[in-house]
């Protein structure tokens, strides 16, 4: 895994809906560090998912630029950006994101296939890591919410990405699964990845190295000491 530095300069996002302009993200500068777990807290509609998608190369900002090391990712062609996402980025979407036609293992290995690699061994290792070994041949519809989230994490980790983005990874999960999911993300950051989690689940604070708060499209850095939960994985 290579150390990557992600820097965003003046990124903002505006939408026009029914002739009404909404600014989901106000001009923001942010830097994401390798080997750290960055948590962005915020209520629904605060703009945290917009920020995450812009940083991960999935949503072009209205203004500003995002640099992975020295590369402005939005100046890349779709093919180049997709390739970068496949190899360097792991993304854990909100909700159920397993492809229903593939088994758990195939879902995980699909991300490796997208990056052009055959990661059978790594797939088995990850299945063990996220506790889905016994469900390797099951289909997503047979899985619980927690299991589906773990599947998404394993898929995001398969290519040993430099950076992992997670959007509300513990939504609707019980305490046990919540801690399990954050624990896995923390391990990834300890392993050297830059991990960015957007959530409104305060449990995340105990695992975070850096905490931001978002409100009305504005982001502010928080001190971790402000939150009284600690990581004990």
């Amino acid at each position: 895994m290579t150390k990557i530095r992600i820097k965003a300069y003046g990124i903002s996002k505006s939408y026009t809906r029914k002739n009404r302009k909404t600014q989901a993200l106000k001009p923001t500068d942010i830097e994401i560090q390798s080997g750290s777990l960055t948590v962005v807290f915020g209520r629904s509609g605060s703009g945290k998912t917009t920020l995450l998608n812009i940083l991960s190369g999935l949503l072009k900002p209205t203004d500003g630029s995002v640099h992975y090391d020295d590369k402005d990712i939005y100046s890349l062609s779709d093919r180049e950006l997709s390739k970068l996402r496949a190899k360097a980025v792991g993304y854990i979407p909100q909700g159920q994101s397993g492809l229903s036609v593939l088994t758990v293992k195939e879902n995980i290995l699909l991300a490796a296939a997208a990056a052009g690699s055959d990661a059978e061994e790594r797939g088995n290792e990850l299945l063990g890591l996220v506790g889905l070994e016994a469900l390797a041949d099951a289909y997503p519809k047979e899985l619980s919410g927690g299991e589906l989230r773990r599947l998404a994490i394993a898929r995001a980790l398969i290519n040993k990405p430099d950076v992992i983005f997670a959007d509300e990874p513990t939504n609707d999960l019980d305490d046990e699964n919540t801690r399990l999911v954050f624990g896995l993300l923390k391990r990834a950051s300890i392993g050297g990845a830059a991990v960015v989690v957007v959530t409104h689940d305060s449990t995340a604070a105990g695992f975070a190295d850096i905490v931001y708060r978002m409100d009305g499209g504005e982001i502010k850095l928080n001190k971790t000491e402000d939150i009284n939960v600690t990581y004990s994985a």
Partner: protein
Amino acid sequence: MKLRYLPFRNIVKRPFRTAALLLIAAFMTAAVFGGSVAAASLKNGIDSLEQRLGADIIVVPESASAKTDLENMLLQGTPGYFYMDKSNEDKIKDIEGVELTSPQYFLVSANAECCTVQVQVIGFDEESDFSIKPWLKQSYDGSLGENEIIVGSSLSTRVGHSLKLYGVECKAVGKLDTTGTGLDTAIYTTPDTVRRLIKASQEKGIGVLSKQSPDDVISSVYVKVKDGYNISDIAAYINLNIDGVQAVRTRSMITGTADKLNVISGSIRILIIAVWILAAAIMTAAFSVLASLRKKEFAVLRTIGLSRRQLGGIVMTESLTICTAGAVIGLAVSAAGVLAFGRVIETKSGLPYLAPDAPKTALFLLMSLAAVIVTGTISSAWSAYRLSHVDTGNNLREGD
């Protein structure tokens, strides 16, 4: 896990969706292929009729139209017979503008003796004939001897075998290709053989001739008009100047059938276009609805690093596979229907029906296949574009 397997997993693991799309593609192909073959078969039938008539005018006894349906008999081979004095041929031959004449002799077989159905026996003069011999040559190039016959394709008698007509043993020396008309149950022979058969019928008490001798009669005269002369004028001249005969323009005889056929062919073509448009609209709608339903799936694929081109490739591979499979099913069903039931269509419609030959059928097959695949591909192209240009962030949330 390979990316290229994904479209096929989508097809196999979503059986209802696949079945519905297969059905649309199959229905469309069946309509395009079946309709094209049916329309071509009807056109072939009328072309074959026109070609086989070969004459500009047919002269028959005046009483012929009353005795039997002349058009049916001459065009469709509905068994019938009539006779007139053979001197009429000489009178016609002397008319200015007449290039060639050739007499023909008709007789109907007695049921029980040879065949399960009554067959039309047609005697033609090998020396003067210009209307039958050209296409008869394809099956038999020799000269017909005593009691030798050439049989229509629908008769079970094989070349070298004999059949009995009015007790006379007749040897089949040739078998004709299918014409798609009732003439497929006809027998062709020489005037001498027909005369012998007429005599034999009289000996058996089945008198087809009451007063005259078979040697003094003919059934019809086929007339070819010289270039530069008006066929209608010559037909009118014959009708006015030769007693007891009627001259019929062959073209006018097939006009009714051709008109009927044109209407049917036109209707089939309209039906093909209507089904095509309908199927294309349904396919476009189906792919469009699917695009909406699959937003999240494609957004997830974007997050793992699939490019727009790869997503478009997945959609196109799925639609191409389904359309090809559906087209093959549709072709098999319609080929079975149209080719196997061609005879039934002919009988029920009362129209000449001659299926296209293998190369032409293969061409229709390829054209139908291409039409459906191209339509399916175009129908899914918009969906492929939409899915590959998804706003990943929004679709990840909306698609839940």
